């Protein structure tokens, strides 16, 4: 039984929470990557709560962190919905692009992929392998070529061939590298010459610590991020940093990745997620 369950079972029975209990609760919230200041805030609000059930007080405090923005994909009115997928290195962008495309295409939509990660060795091939498996077309460029050119070609092709969705993969980049961030801005601007970008999804690894906030902030400054894809939630990490991002930057988590198979991407359900944090082993 996870600590929260024990804690909650205990407090609901005795309805008296000792200082040690609060300390342990503090430790659990910290271990979920919620961050020190947010954890302090959650505990303060839970302690203040007049609720008879402490379990509800904590659940409420966590729920209050959530963004109120919609969690469904924004869909274009003009016919082509363009999704740009961005993030730091190794979070699972390419895999998420493939999963997302498979999900949209299995609902009967025509999806085109753009492989604008021209930097990392074999990133294009990785996306091509996925595309072959799910039966989609990928627009590619030369290795180390101009990523914005690939994005532009993809958008032009998507319009010419009446695709309904275009999902573009980009190279992983650390958010403190100004030149690479500027490149991202260029990619978006170039696409927008042809068609609006409806979604900019930031892929965040659930194992990420407090640096996730810096990622969300700096990527948002470079291009307007519209949502989060939280990956690798099938591991032991609880991904509390995503809640911190929702709270600090008002960015909704839209999808979660839970495995290496193509179907392991599901729309984010806040209730299940918070229950997951509370029940974590």
């Amino acid at each position, binding site marked *: 039984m996870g600590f929260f369950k024990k804690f909650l079972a205990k407090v609901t029975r005795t309805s008296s929470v000792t200082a040690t209990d609060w300390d342990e609760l503090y*430790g659990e919230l910290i271990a979920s990557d919620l961050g020190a200041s947010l954890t302090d805030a959650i505990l303060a609000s839970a302690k203040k709560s007049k609720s008879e059930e402490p379990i509800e007080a904590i659940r409420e405090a966590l729920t209050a962190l959530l963004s109120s923005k919609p969690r469904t994909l924004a869909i274009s009115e003009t016919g082509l919905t363009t999704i740009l997928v961005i993030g730091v290195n190794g*979070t699972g962008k390419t895999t998420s692009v493939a999963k997302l495309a498979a999900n949209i295409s299995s609902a009967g939509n025509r999806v085109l992929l753009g492989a604008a990660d021209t930097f990392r060795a074999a990133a294009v*091939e990785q996306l091509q392998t996925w595309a072959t498996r799910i039966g989609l077309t990928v627009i590619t460029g030369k290795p180390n070529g101009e990523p914005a050119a690939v994005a532009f070609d993809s958008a032009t092709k998507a319009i010419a061939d009446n695709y309904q969705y275009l999902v573009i993969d980009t190279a992983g980049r650390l958010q*403190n590298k100004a030149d690479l961030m500027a490149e991202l801005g260029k990619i978006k601007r170039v696409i927008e010459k042809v068609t609006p970008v409806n979604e900019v999804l930031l892929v965040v690894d659930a*194992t990420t610590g407090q640096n996730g906030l810096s990622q969300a902030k700096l990527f948002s400054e470079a291009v307007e991020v519209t949502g989060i894809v939280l990956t690798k939630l099938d591991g032991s*990490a609880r991904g509390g940093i995503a809640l911190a991002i929702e709270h600090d930057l008002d960015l909704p988590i839209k999808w979660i990745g839970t495995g290496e198979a193509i179907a392991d991407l599901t729309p984010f359900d806040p209730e299940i997620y918070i229950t997951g944090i509370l029940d974590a082993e």
Partner: protein
Amino acid sequence: MFESLGNRFSNAFASLRSRGKLSNSDISNVCQEIRQALLDADVALSVVEDFVGKIEVQAKEALIDLQAGANQAQVVFEIVNKELVELLGSQARRVRLAKVAPTVIMLAGLQGAGKTTLAGKLAKYFADQGDTPILVASDLQRPNAVTQLQVVGQNAGIPVFAPQPGNGVGNPVEVAREGIAFAKSKLHNIVIVDTAGRLGVDEELMQEAKDIRDAISPDEILFVVDAMTGQDAVRTAQAFQDGVGFDGVVLTKLDGDARGGAALSIVTQTGKPIMFASTGEKLADFDLFHPDRMASRILGMGDVATLAEQAKKAFSGEGAAKMEEKFARGDDFTLEDFLEQISAMSKMGSMGKILGMLPGAGAMKKQIENFDESEIVRTKAIVQSMTPTERRDPKVLNGSRRARIAAGSGRQVSEVNSLVERFTQAQKMMKQMRNGKVPAGMPAGMGLPPGAAIPGMSTPNKGNQPPKKKSRSGNPAKRAAEEQG
């Protein structure tokens, strides 16, 4: 957004320093700051509490013994620094080479930690030292991981053993085993085995890692971990330690702005040293891990040791010697020399990266972030648009020459003017220095803002810092005298 660990420590100690005499409650307050900073840096709670507890006890003990008038804040600061270095592993360890070649190194870690990229960097590192490494592609899981390793190997000029296409096809244990046999037959003295990323909780894949290990009996198993990892680092490291076991840790993506507190947690939790640090996307962005330097960086003292080492590499022997000779002869510093220096500097990496290693970098984070890297490219373009005569003697630069240079470099005439003016001033200053005079009103060289001096910079040099290269080369006459004497 919270401050960096370095800034926080700086602030905590600045308030300590402003007091003459410290009380026990001052110490407690500083410890509270340190605790918060470490948590923000993703250090595991248990590690933080141990660390802060130790500091508090030691600091309070030290204060009792202190003579009045001694710098008490300095004492506390040194305790923190010492503990941090100790926590980080106190000694950088080298790879243990096998008694009978080849030395087998196996990489393991979560998905996306950077194993494949690291495999290439590690191989290049050994090849540069005269070893003959080979890479073995045992990640047959992730689509095109094998292709990626092949490309990485090609870029690094390292052979790759990849008999299986991957993408779910082939047996990674077999590939690893055959890879070792192949390496032996071709007399490679180091084998680096790349494996698939796996989660600590995935028992099946952990068993596979164990099978690979048992098949090849590696001399070193390196656990590759992303510096951005949060609190899960402790759980994952323990899972890998229990599952496959590892001998050392490699910290990747240290060029990001993550504080890297996970490193502290892993070292404390598993007792295994961090051996290497990976700091960029280029193959050469890779180094031995230095606990003392990392501690300095965390404490906001800058990473002068690394900077000096890189400078030494960049300003390679011949060029530097030539330059010194010129000075000794009394020749003028010309725009040609200037161009050479800029080129050498850009070999060291981006300006932002270089500045980030300087003491007080935390305080001028904003300036570093805003540093326009293309300024260097533009300056270079202007100088390169000059004729050799103009570079050697800028005095000939009249209006029409300047207009031509501006057109040639695609800049404004005013930019050419300002470059020439700045250069002339610098030239004058160098002349004065050579004549043994300290130039009046010499501007701060790197343009450090007045507030850049932070606590910690004044820490007495305990001999772990290299001699100040710049001041020496700036005064060749004195330097020559020193060398002779």
